């Protein structure tokens, strides 16, 4: 192209990315290139990052349309049918829990809720790749880590209700869980902050000569935060034993992923600039998530350093109970999402291998719902946001410091406690 004279150049114009469709339009995912299941190679965990750059631009998939687990990632998987059924149960429990808590929010039993609809496979499957003592630094949309880790559902509900049995004593917004015992770091409302903290935790494990690894979590939108960059720099510099997970559910509240991604192609590809190997995975494929998580966790445990893993999924529900997605995207878009529903896909796989049936699935669904409802009644019997037993306001002044300083003691007295 010949460069024209300065004065003849057209005026500059700003590029503002826009999703292809808006409310009223026909959903269109034709731009999402989806390779057939089983076609993406599985390199050894000690592969040179330079040699596996292609894995950041494809999608690792295990389950095909017939529900069969195929390809090299399937072959390397360490999981039996019983564990898969348990995994299915975790996802179904999370979905039922979400539905009940969404309803509870509408009934004003709590102020707020955020569901995982469509993203259940990611946190539920990933949890299986961790060992006791490993630590997740989750966002607000990885409660599957708790459910798959055996954290009591009732305690989760008590947190959402901010009642007397809430371990956070009603100080935190609903869904901001915390459990050191279950390897689940305290959730913060400030996005991306935990990403670099996970790297620091992993560095501490390495400094201490330990065998524990960390898992960092972030959404597609929050990769734009400075702490995402900080985490990748530190992880890269110190080869920290951390899995840097990116959950790309296409949406950051109302903002489509192109606003955060720009022209970078994929979020996984961001790892390459830091010399960190990156995988891009079908986030609605329980087996693919597990296979990628095991690969990345093994790399970390072998002191081979960090891995970036992008899970390609779709946020089927609203951002939160305070959000109405029909204001910015087509209502039918989630149904058109080409990677389908993670629960149905694992169900179909288990049926295909003769370990499950539609009847058993319906039965399990009813059982799980009954269990969740019964647990919900127990939690509500303790208290909800406006009723029942709630933490004492005297608690409000505890834990600001290890020991209450005189000025806080004075304020507590002033408040009447």
């Amino acid at each position, binding site marked *: 192209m010949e460069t024209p004279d300065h004065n003849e150049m057209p005026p500059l114009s700003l590029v503002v990315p826009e999703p292809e469709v808006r409310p009223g339009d026909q959903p269109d995912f034709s731009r999402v290139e989806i390779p057939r299941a089983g076609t993406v190679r599985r390199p050894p965990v000690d592969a040179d990052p330079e040699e596996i750059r292609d894995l950041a631009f494809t999608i690792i998939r295990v389950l095909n349309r017939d529900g069969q687990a195929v390809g090299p990632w399937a072959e390397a998987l360490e999981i039996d049918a019983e564990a898969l059924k348990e995994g299915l149960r975790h996802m179904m429990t999370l979905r039922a829990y979400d539905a009940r808590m969404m309803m509870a929010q509408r009934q004003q039993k709590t102020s707020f809720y955020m569901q995982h609809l469509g993203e259940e496979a990611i946190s539920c499957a990933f949890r299986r790749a961790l060992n006791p003592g490993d*630590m997740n*630094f989750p966002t607000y949309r990885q409660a599957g880590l708790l459910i798959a880790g055996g954290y009591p559902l009732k305690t989760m509900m008590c947190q959402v209700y901010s009642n007397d049995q809430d*371990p*956070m*004593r009603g*100080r*935190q917004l609903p869904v*901001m869980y*915390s*459990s*050191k015992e279950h390897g689940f*770091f*305290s959730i*913060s*409302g*400030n996005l991306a*902050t935990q*990403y*670099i*903290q*996970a*790297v*620091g*935790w*992993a*560095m*501490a*494990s*390495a*400094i*201490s000569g330990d065998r524990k690894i*960390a898992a960092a979590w972030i959404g597609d939108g929050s990769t734009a935060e*400075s*702490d995402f*960059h*900080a*985490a990748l*720099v*530190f992880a890269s*510099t110190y080869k920290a034993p951390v899995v840097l997970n990116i959950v790309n559910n296409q949406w950051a509240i109302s903002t489509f992923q192109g606003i955060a991604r720009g022209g970078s192609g994929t979020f996984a590809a961001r790892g390459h600039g830091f010399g960190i190997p990156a995988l891009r995975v079908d986030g609605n494929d329980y087996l693919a998530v597990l296979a990628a998580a095991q690969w990345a966790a093994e790399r970390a445990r072998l002191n081979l350093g960090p891995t970036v893993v992008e899970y390609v999924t779709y946020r089927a529900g609203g951002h939160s109970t305070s959000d109405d997605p029909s204001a910015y995207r087509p209502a039918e878009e989630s149904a058109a999402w080409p990677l389908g529903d993670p629960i149905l896909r694992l169900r179909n796989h288990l049926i295909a291998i003769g370990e499950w049936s539609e009847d058993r699935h319906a039965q399990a669904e009813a059982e799980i719902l009954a269990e969740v409802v019964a647990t919900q009644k127990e939690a509500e019997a303790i208290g909800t946001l406006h009723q029942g037993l709630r933490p004492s306001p005297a608690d409000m002044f*505890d*834990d*600001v*410091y*290890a020991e209450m*300083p*005189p*000025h806080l003691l004075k304020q507590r007295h002033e408040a009447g406690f």
Partner: protein
Amino acid sequence: MARMTMIEAIRDALDVAMGADPRVVVFGEDVGYFGGVFRCTAGLQAKYGRTRCFDTPINESGIVGAGIGMATYGLRPVVEIQFADYMYPAYDQIVSEAARLRYRSAGEFTCPMVVRMPTGGGIFGGQTHSQSPEALFTHVTGLKTVVPSNPHDAKGLLLAAIEDPDPVIFLEPKRLYNGPFEGHHDRPVKAWKAHELGEVPEGHYTVPLGKAVMRRAGQAMTVLTYGTMVHVALSAAEETGLDAEVIDLRSLLPLDLEAVTASVGRTGRCLIVHEATLTSGYGAELAALVQAECFWQLEAPVRRVAGWDTPYPHVHEWSYFPGPARVGAAMRELMEVV
């Protein structure tokens, strides 16, 4: 006892802490091999190895964020921000995370971390090597904020900060690194070796957080101050001949309110002195507390001498820095009110 500069005292504190506790790790920009741009970590990497004392990428949020992760794991990180003026990228991690972690997790996760940062002016540091951002920390619930004024306290306070279970912001007046400074920029610089507070005990000792100390007993007025301004206030008291009681707060939060009210209750007059800008500075909190606690003993309005409400200028250093002349004038005016 040994004679030390404040730099040596800080390094000695880190050495003592690292020697006693393998959980103590020290890192920041240029902190490792080079030993810090102010030499506060010199020799520590050679003595304790690269995984105990190391250089970081230039990313303040990363330094503090990684420190929080390490503290959560069970280490005792002592991180350095090269200048307090450069802490702003880390402010989200400090305010939203370090300070809140214990509270939001109901004690499940804690952050025993120290963030060291050189602070203050008087060195021709211009806008970004002179700031005193302490009020941005004292306003944050969950943080402790400490400012030493001499080598003895610097070591004892730093050791106390490292052992403290809560996050501590440790502000080191860089003007005091090599010697005491009374604000007389036109006189030869002094060295700590000639100063009694340059005497630093060997080995382990602590100066407790939350305890002020009286640097000069007096009857006429109370001067509440910290850091470099302690020396300026002492000098102004000598030069004016006014019998001022000078209180070195040392800890801004928690504050030794008892020491403050005991002194002001006795003298009936209170002058607050800090380098930081006036409006909404830490002096406003002190003034409000003194007014509330000592109202019936006060014989004059509480007065503040502080940096002007401007960014810290370069060429106007000595018109900006609240030196002994300005502090002395305020002392005299405070005595004129009957």
